[in-house]
């Protein structure tokens, strides 16, 4: 296990983070944007777990942080989806580009 350097794991998380970010920037569907955010949060989770495990094993701070992030992600997703659904009712679309009534 030790032969995998920590940076490799961080490579995965960073890459995932930017993949999520790319999705966030380009996707036009609100739900897929939400999905991209999940990717971002997951990459953070990997970071926390990896750091906790390989660098600071004395405490469980990272692990706990991960747990809380996961729960918050759930809450966030719930509210976001509620809003999206509400939005969909009036807009009849989930294209984020169409939600630009408020601008300038």
């Amino acid at each position, binding site marked *: 296990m030790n032969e995998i350097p920590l*940076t490799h794991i961080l490579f995965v998380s960073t890459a995932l983070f*930017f*993949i999520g970010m790319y999705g966030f920037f380009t996707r036009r569907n609100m739900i897929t944007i939400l999905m991209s955010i999940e990717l971002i949060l997951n990459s953070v*989770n990997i970071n926390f*777990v990896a750091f906790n495990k390989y660098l600071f094993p004395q405490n469980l701070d990272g692990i706990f942080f991960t747990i809380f992030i996961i729960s918050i*992600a759930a809450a966030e997703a719930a509210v976001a989806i509620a809003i999206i659904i509400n939005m*969909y009712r009036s807009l009849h679309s989930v294209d984020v580009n169409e939600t630009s009534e408020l601008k300038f």
Partner: protein
Amino acid sequence: MNSTSIMFYIIAAFILSTGILAVTTGKIFRSAIWLLFSLMGIAALYFWMQVEFIAAVQIIIYVGGIIVLIIFSIFLTQKSGEEMPKPLRKRTLFSLLAVCFGFAFTYLIIYQYGFNSGEAPFELKIADIGMQMLSTTEHGFILPFEVISILLLAALIGSIVIAMKVKTTEK
């Protein structure tokens, strides 16, 4: 290079490739499925890192909860299999540049930092998690636990209010 490391690279490749697919696929339902795979890959990574508890939570909440929620919402708002509108080309270009640059930059910094692995062995006991979760002392997480419960309550109420609108509009 032993089997665990090979395992790691396989998992890593899986996570990233499904992740890329999840954000690029044209069909939304497929996208959700790719996301599901990616999240499961992450769970596998947790397993690989021997933090089974997190892996379990990951599967339960993400795969069992959030993805399901997302798929429900997809069904509510979309016909499955329908092609999503293509992203704007200019935005794609910019995003790609930004993301590539960002990634290179970030990883370079991380890489240069030179993380060293700690000496102490890491042992994760689920009992510890339970104890600390409800402990009120130093490194006890009861307060965050309570806070998150309020957050979930509030999120619940908020979602209900917003989603409950159905009746009023249809009247």
